[in-house]
């Protein structure tokens, strides 16, 4: 009997800790619904007295969020696609063999994911301008972000491939498949879930990307929502309810995906990140 | 005198939520005894052992170790040692550090520890391996370190949780003898959980057979072999397992009529109610092969297996009977043999309750 009560108390404590940690999220939602003057109330209220549900439509129009989010989506999907195409096969090979070349390749890949974007942007920008890529800024950003996130993708997906038993591929080869066939028809479908989860993680990362986008894309109509948010928050800004509304619209799709896929994401992370 | 009762369990009950895992267990273990807890998976033997260690809490009853009530005492204060199925050796410590872990917690002096380590290492035969890590040891060596870790503490009782399951067959036979020899040498009190009834029979002074959270029968090994109290115990103890045949008590009450076609009557010891439905238990090693004319049972043979020292004969057709014959046999599959058995070796159980009659 006491075990049930301890479990209940522990659950309550866990919920309290989670609520405490996620308070900033709550604050974002709450602030966006307050009126322009209510946000300056002291003491700040925990619940808006007069929720302004119309603020979302207002900010959407005011800042042209449709276009910003569309640009974010383009960059995110482009990055996800390119990363998946290049990274999946690479992860497959790195999972299949274990020799000195593979170790070297793995080491290099691991090293490449540590490079901060804010330090790599300088040579990338100069290089891009020399090759005329700055005329296609979104493509340039997709290339740069892909290079940044691909090592992470490869590490995660490699872990997925390592959980597919080697005997299955050998059986496929004995049954008459070529290597391409075995990979495409047998191994890939089994790794599909892990690859999808990793790809979604990449999408979410690229959706929020900031440094490369801000540095490379000068034309406002091509900028993603992260840059738009940054521009919205000028030095002397006071319309925090609108800014939070912008943030809400920007972040809620990501959070929705996260909540739905939370278990898969956690297990994918834990199996891949610690190797 | 209660000090002689090293372990005393009275009315032990344990619930996991709505699942009643241990039902009114009563067990007394005198000092120096080697007790085996046997039974099929899920019978509660491991739960009982872990409750003794304090790793599981009990829902009801009294548990005394060394004369003191231990119901709510945490494991570290109970002064019992356990050898785990997986050995649970500390992987980041050497053999020596594993052995001295409990002593270091008590801040025993360095000289004391050295002396104790040398003594135990000699006892378990690992003096050369004190500086190795567990991952560098074989299964048998790890097993001995696990035991050494328990021995060095001179605990009130040793608890073994299926310690030999992870070893290969030959090593198991060898370690059985070693563990029992160690127990005798130390004058220890041991509780040994296993699902292997051969281990229980060969090692223990006292065997406790459990099923579904209840003690079906307890006694010396040969007691359980000769006079099983229930059909379950009869079928559990002894290898190959006892043969069971449905039967009816004959009109005179001194014989049974085997229900299956082609089988006859057997004489039993004692008197039973005529017409009663029973199950007859016949051990394969007690069935004697003889001429068909004088035999009580005629059995067509389906399979003959010889290990070189004994031969197993299995009946074909509907009758499922196994016979063990020492040495070689000329009998071939397809032959018919006559079987007879001494009346005092015929076990009779009530068909419904399984109780011995």
């Amino acid at each position: 009997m006491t075990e049930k009560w301890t479990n209940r108390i522990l659950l309550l404590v866990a919920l309290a800790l989670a609520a405490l940690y996620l308070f900033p999220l709550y604050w974002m939602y709450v602030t966006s619904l307050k009126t322009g003057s209510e946000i300056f109330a002291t003491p700040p209220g925990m619940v808006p007295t007069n929720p302004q549900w119309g603020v979302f439509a207002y900010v959407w129009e005011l800042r042209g969020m449709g276009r910003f989010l569309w640009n974010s989506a383009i960059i995110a999907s482009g990055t996800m696609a390119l990363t998946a195409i290049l990274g999946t096969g690479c992860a497959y090979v790195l999972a299949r063999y274990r020799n000195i070349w593979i170790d070297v390749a793995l080491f290099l890949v691991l090293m490449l994911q540590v490079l901060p974007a804010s330090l790599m942007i300088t040579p990338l920008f100069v290089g891009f301008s020399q090759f005329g890529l700055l005329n296609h800024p979104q493509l340039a950003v997709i290339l740069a972000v892909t290079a940044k996130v691909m090592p992470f993708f490869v590490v995660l997906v490699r872990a997925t491939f390592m959980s597919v038993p080697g005997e299955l591929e050998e059986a496929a080869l004995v049954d008459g498949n070529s290597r391409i066939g075995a990979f495409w028809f047998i191994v890939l479908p089994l790794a599909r879930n892990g690859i999808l989860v990793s790809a979604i993680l990449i999408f979410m990362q690229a959706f929020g990307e900031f440094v490369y986008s801000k540095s490379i894309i000068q034309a406002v109509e091509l900028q993603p929502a992260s840059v738009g948010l940054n521009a919205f928050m000028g030095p002397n800004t006071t319309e925090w309810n609108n800014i939070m509304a912008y943030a809400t619209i920007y972040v809620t799709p990501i959070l929705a995906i996260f909540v739905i896929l939370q278990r898969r994401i956690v297990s994918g992370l834990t199996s891949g990140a610690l190797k | 005198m209660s000090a002689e009762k090293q372990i005393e369990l009275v009315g032990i009950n344990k619930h996991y939520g709505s699942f009643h895992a241990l039902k009114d267990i009563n067990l007394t273990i005198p000092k120096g005894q080697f007790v085996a807890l046997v039974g099929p998976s899920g019978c509660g033997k491991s739960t009982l052992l872990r409750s003794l260690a304090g790793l599981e809490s009990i829902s009801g009853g009294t548990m005394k170790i060394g004369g003191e009530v231990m119901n709510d005492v945490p494991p570290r204060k109970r002064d019992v040692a356990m050898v785990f199925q997986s050995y649970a050796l500390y992987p980041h410590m050497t053999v020596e550090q594993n052995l001295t872990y409990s002593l270091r917690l008590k801040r025993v002096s360095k000289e004391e520890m050295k002396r104790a380590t040398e003594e135990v290492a000699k006892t378990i035969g690992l003096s050369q391996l004190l500086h190795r890590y567990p991952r560098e040891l074989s299964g048998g060596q790890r097993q001995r370190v696990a035991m050494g870790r328990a021995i060095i503490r001179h605990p009130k009782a040793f608890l073994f949780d299926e310690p030999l399951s992870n070893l290969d067959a030959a090593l198991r036979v060898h370690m059985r003898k070693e563990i029992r020899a160690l127990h005798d040498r130390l004058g220890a009190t041991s509780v040994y959980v296993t699902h292997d009834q051969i281990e229980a029979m060969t090692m223990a002074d006292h065997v406790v057979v459990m099923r579904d959270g209840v003690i079906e029968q307890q006694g010396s090994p040969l007691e359980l072999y000769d006079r099983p109290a229930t059909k379950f115990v009869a079928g559990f103890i002894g290898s190959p397992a006892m043969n069971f045949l449905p039967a009816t008590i004959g009109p005179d009450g001194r014989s049974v009529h085997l229900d299956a076609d082609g089988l006859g009557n057997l004489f039993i010891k004692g008197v039973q109610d005529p017409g009663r439905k029973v199950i007859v238990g016949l051990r394969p090693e007690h069935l004697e092969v003889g001429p068909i004319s004088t035999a009580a049972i005629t059995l067509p043979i389906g399979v003959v297996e010889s290990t070189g020292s004994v031969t197993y004969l299995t009946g074909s057709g509907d009758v499922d009977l196994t016979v063990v014959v020492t040495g070689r046999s000329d009998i071939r599959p397809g032959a018919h043999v006559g079987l007879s058995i001494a009346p005092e070796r015929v076990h009779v159980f009530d068909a419904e309750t399984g109780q011995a009659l």
Partner: protein
Amino acid sequence: MNRLLSGLRDGKGFDIVLVTVPLLFLFALSGLPLIYNVVMSFQEVDMFSLGTFARPWVGFNNYIAVFSQPETWPIMRNTLVFVVVSIAGQFAIGFGLALFFTLKFPGASYIRGLFLASWVMPGLVVGAIWNWILAGDFGVLNYILKSLGIISENIFWRSDTAWSLWGVVIANIWNGVAFNMILLAVGLAGIPRDLYEAAALDGATAWQRFWTITLPMMRSTIGAVISLGLIFTLQQFDLFAAITSGGPANSSNVAQYWAWEQSFRQYDFAKGSTISVVMIAVVLVASIIYVRSTRHEVRG
């Protein structure tokens, strides 16, 4: 030619293509820029010479210039403080939470996963939210601190040179707690339960079990988590851009933000690449420690 093509479909050719194409891509977009960074740090770069590779070679002048600037050492010190305090805070809180969630109660794993929401959010949104929380007169953090009696007057996290860095530190700790917690939780889960049971029977209290069993067996996990923490903290940019932009007066400026500022605000690409080269060297050392710590795992 046929053998090459058939090798492509069956066997080594297939593997080689699958690996080398991505590696070439990474080489072109990560490896070359790395080298280019070093090259540019030895050149004199201005708006007009951006388009060419052949720029005047100035040797170590850029490095000397950078390290003789008055703001360099305070910024480096800020970076060190930022990194050390962030890692310490994230690790301590993350470990505490991970330990809490090892208690098996129903719902534990699901609630634990919710914490990762902070990890998936765009950095700029996290920065925007914390910017508002850290506001001087109207931010909710000051309100909470005053209600708890910890401070009596508002701290101007964003505009006070004494506090600006700490504001970003707080936001960064919040950001990284979840990731630390998850990785540490995995490390904790890898310790077999019967080791704790054996230790308990051997006489160890909970605290002793933590010191003699948990911590030693977590050594490689802890090494990995701290190295990863170092790497990620040095990558942190969005929070600075959203909260303080490195100000006021460089009081909250750190090396990775400063490098970007040099290139994209001052248009001094040579300085930007110089600072980048120095910081990349630091990051690479940290990553080598990370890789080595994950290789030496003690498996029972």
